[in-house]
């Protein structure tokens, strides 16, 4: 009886120690890793032959098909290309400004989620949950109307604002994961030197976080470019809307949508390659 008790006691202690050891803040940890959050864009890197090959196949396939259409079927394809490409500036404008907005919102949300203040965590958490739980299109239209009704801003600004808010939540999660990927010892060393927590974030944690999350931001940029096509419902003349306006004039629906798809595909593929190159550079520079 006595024996059994001590053995049980021993086992209990052992597991207690083991469990606790796993949260020992002094445990040497591996360096920061890269955070990947993507909705499926495959970014080809040099090492991954098969992805690079399939990237090439798709990219050149799309180019060749576009060339064939333009050269051998100038009517109606030349006209369709010309019309749809008129939406390019709006698409890029919306994408670039929205991603900047999303990064700014995301940085604050990310910092808020790792804050020591409970109520700030709560606000950020609710924001993220809210955005994640509502379809992008619904949010977009809702925020667009809300902003339009209360601030009387022009459509482009309202669209950029809505996309920023929607993507800001995902960006916040990326920033949070990035901050948490930085070894705990970094914060401790900074604080032990007498820096305040906010100084430590500014000079030590965030600069390292940027490196870790840059590829993920690149991915978001690509997603944003594709999802920016949703603003066509807000009567902004982006690529998709230009295409649909052309359809309503000519009823060439299939032909036009083929061209719209090709344009998006080519841009997306170029961007994903660029992000891949960027990431390689980043790794090379340590």
């Amino acid at each position, binding site marked *: 009886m006595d024996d059994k008790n001590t053995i049980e006691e021993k086992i209990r202690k052992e597991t207690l120690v083991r469990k606790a050891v796993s949260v020992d803040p002094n445990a040497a940890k591996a360096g920061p890793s890269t955070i990947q959050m993507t909705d499926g864009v495959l970014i080809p890197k040099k090492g991954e032959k098969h992805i690079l090959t399939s990237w090439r196949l798709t990219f050149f396939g799309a180019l060749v098909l576009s060339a064939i259409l333009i050269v051998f079927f100038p009517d109606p394809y030349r006209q369709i290309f010309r019309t749809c490409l008129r939406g390019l500036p709006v698409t890029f404008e919306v994408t670039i400004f929205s991603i900047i907005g999303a990064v700014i919102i995301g940085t604050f949300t990310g910092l808020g989620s790792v804050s020591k203040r409970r109520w700030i965590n709560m606000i950020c958490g609710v924001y993220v949950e809210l955005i994640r739980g509502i379809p992008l299109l619904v949010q977009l239209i809702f925020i667009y109307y809300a902003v339009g009704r209360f601030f009387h801003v022009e459509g482009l600004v309202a669209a950029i604002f809505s996309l920023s808010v929607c993507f800001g939540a995902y960006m916040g999660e990326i920033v949070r994961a990035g901050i948490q990927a930085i070894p705990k010892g970094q914060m401790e060393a900074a604080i032990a030197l007498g*820096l305040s927590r906010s100084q430590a974030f500014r000079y030590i944690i965030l600069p390292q976080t940027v490196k870790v999350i840059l590829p993920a931001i690149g991915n978001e940029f690509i997603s944003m470019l594709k999802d920016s096509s949703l603003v066509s419902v807000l009567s902004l003349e982006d690529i998709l809307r230009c295409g649909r306006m052309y359809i309503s004039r000519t009823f060439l629906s299939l032909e036009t949508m083929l061209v719209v798809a090709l344009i998006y595909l080519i841009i997306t593929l170029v961007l994903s390659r660029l992000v891949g190159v960027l990431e390689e550079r980043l790794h090379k520079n340590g």
Partner: protein
Amino acid sequence: MAKIEIKDLSKDYTTPNGVLHAVKHANLTVNDGEVVVIIGPSGSGKSTLLRCVNALETATAGHILIDGIDVTAPGTDIRQIREEVGMVFQSFNLFPHLTVLENITLAPMKVKKMDKAEAEELARQLLKRVGLSDKADVHPTQLSGGQQQRVAIARSLAMKPKAMLFDEPTSALDPEMIKEVLDVMTDLAREGMTMLLVTHEMGFAKAAADKVIFMDNGEILEEGTPEKMFTSPENPRTIDFLNHIL
């Protein structure tokens, strides 16, 4: 330079399996200019005790006085304490995105508002002192473990601390690099720095320590001069532990 008094200090952690008493009623004094070495088996609470001194962990009960100022009192400016008490970690914790020089100048510039030229001058002096003058402009990842730890010591010294804490500064190092770090620490001890450290380098303890503390299970079980502790320890757990590691 500074006197560290630890009075009846306890630290509990709440874990999923209940409360864990990491440190139990510890009492310890490090007098001005003294070097005190803490030894003990893994999980005995050595790091926790050390980390309470500069408030990286908040003590559950008890007091820590540094030159009479109570670290655990609610109104105390903890950042001021941390400026005055340097800490060196087992895993170096250098900032990888900054150069060696920037690692050292950051805190003096941001915390003490020292101007850049002065901070760099100070950093170069410190690098010379730890024998790494030629490494000012490289990034920490390009250094060996021993070199990194020496930079970490220089980084701490740049704040001109009154006392230094070391948590197993040589445990992560290859044997051939341990000496270069211990040499720097021995110099510091000779210059009269108040030092509280966790280390199992018995050679260092014998050469530099005024006092050796043995901890087990969160309790300080025995303390004495290095000669006494290593040649004629009294507590059976100390004897057992020393038999294991010597």
